[in-house]
């Protein structure tokens, strides 16, 4: 490991984090705008042209807002929790290859389109997000509020449960691609996107992914109408913004992984656009689906949600895995 590599990685990380934070900010605006359009209204349009400065105003306001803290909190954990959440969210993006298959030639350097091309691939994401559960849980615990605690319990139980289904729904992809390395998976989709043979797995992934990020219709942890604001009820100002950030960045990551694993990452059908644009387009489409679901569906009840995870998604993922394995082995045997 040379210094050059370290510096390169650090620069890439800085760029990615910057992009993610901007992406987060505009994702909130995107959500508000898209939902507004579905509800026949314009959405934010006063702050800057077409409301484009709205996220800036929100951020500015939150940054300069004083923090009120709940009495009886566990001070250290209360401060630590949002940091864990946001760090976990940011770190998961390390494995996402934005484009490929070659490298970016810049000033004579060959730079990969990713921060890390780990051969454990998606497992990195699972590892990091499973750590992110602590952020949410500790937020609920440290706030010394019943609503927070209930939200945190629900949220962490939900995340742990759905991580299983989420992981297993990706196994068919690994079987087809023969690798867990992200770059390999995308390259294996050069001719056919995996969504075509693995459509059920895609839907399983999508459902589990939405549940994993605590988004509607599985947004129970912060089910406003039941639990006020769930685990971050007692957070205000910038710390609250960090949770918000973590949630939206997680959305971006789940969409990115879906784009890479099922939708052929940077490969476009006609080769019109350069790779990164295809990738971005797919991510945006998936994010649109996220917002669309939020605009439409009622929230599920907590016990049904757990039942769905354990009794439907998990067996279906396993079945999907078996079927894929059998088919692949049969095809290899036949050939």
């Amino acid at each position, binding site marked *: 490991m040379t210094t050059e590599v370290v510096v390169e990685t650090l620069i890439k990380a800085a760029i990615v984090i910057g992009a993610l934070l901007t992406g987060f900010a505009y994702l909130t605006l995107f959500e508000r705008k898209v939902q507004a359009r579905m509800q026949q209204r314009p959405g934010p349009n006063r702050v800057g042209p077409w409301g484009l400065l*709205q996220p800036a*105003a929100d951020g*500015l306001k939150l940054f300069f807002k004083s923090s009120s803290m709940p009495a009886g909190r566990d001070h250290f954990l209360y401060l630590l929790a949002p940091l864990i959440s946001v760090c976990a969210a940011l770190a998961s993006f390390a494995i996402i290859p934005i484009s490929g298959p070659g490298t970016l030639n810049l000033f004579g350097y060959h730079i990969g389109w990713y921060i890390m091309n780990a051969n454990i691939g998606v497992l990195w994401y699972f590892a990091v997000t499973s750590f992110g559960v602590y952020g949410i849980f500790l937020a609920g615990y440290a706030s010394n509020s019943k609503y927070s605690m209930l939200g945190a319990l629900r949220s962490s139980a939900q995340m742990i449960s759905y991580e299983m289904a989420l992981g297993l729904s990706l196994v068919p992809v690994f079987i087809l691609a023969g690798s867990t390395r992200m770059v390999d998976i995308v390259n294996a989709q050069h001719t056919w996107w995996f969504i075509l043979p693995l459509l059920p797995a895609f839907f399983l992934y999508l459902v589990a992914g939405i549940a994993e990020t605590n988004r509607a219709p599985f947004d129970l942890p912060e089910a406003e109408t039941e639990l006020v604001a769930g685990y971050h009820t007692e957070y205000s100002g910038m710390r609250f913004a960090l949770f918000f950030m973590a949630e939206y960045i997680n959305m971006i990551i789940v969409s990115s992984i879906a784009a890479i694993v099922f939708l052929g990452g940077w490969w476009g059908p006609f080769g019109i656009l350069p790779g990164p644009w295809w990738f971005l387009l797919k991510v945006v489409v998936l994010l649109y689906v996220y917002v669309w679901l939020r605009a439409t569906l009622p929230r599920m009840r907590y016990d049904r949600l757990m039942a769905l995870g354990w009794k439907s998604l998990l067996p279906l993922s396993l079945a999907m895995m078996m079927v894929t394995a059998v088919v692949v082995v049969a095809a290899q045997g036949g050939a």
Partner: protein
Amino acid sequence: MEELKLRPVPTPTGRAAGPTPLNALGNNVLTTTLDKVINWGRASAIWPALFGLACCAIEMMGTVGPRHDLSRFGSELFRASPRQADLMIVSGRVAIKMAPVLRQIYDQMPEPKWVIAMGACASSAGMFNNYAIVQSVDKIVPVDIYLPGCPPRPEALIDAVVKLQRKIRGEPLVKRTA
């Protein structure tokens, strides 16, 4: 159970600023520019507390509805948790039983925070000149904008929000057209 404690509150105009990070800074050219930027941010992203009392709450919901769409001003994010809210819209009559609760919600909101007394009942007890209603909410919390009407139309609430934005930015409330 709850005791009604009517606390003296400062007048709306002379309200002391809360402990915000900015108070630490002195007053020079840089900070006044910074002040402007921050006030712009605060004025453009007023998140109200999700907190409705009576009739006016219905019109408050109507203001969020598609016909009037409060979201145009960046204010549609009604936060259920007072800790994440900037603006308290006292929408309706405040019963004496409710007064301590209202005050507690106000106390839970972090600075800087603003209050709109929406409608006749919240601003002055309106028609309920009787034993059960707090005679004007400014006895409990400092009010920044009073909004008459029973209930005020959504447009009137938007007007109040616009005036509040102007107040936050430090401009005169009413721009004379003539």
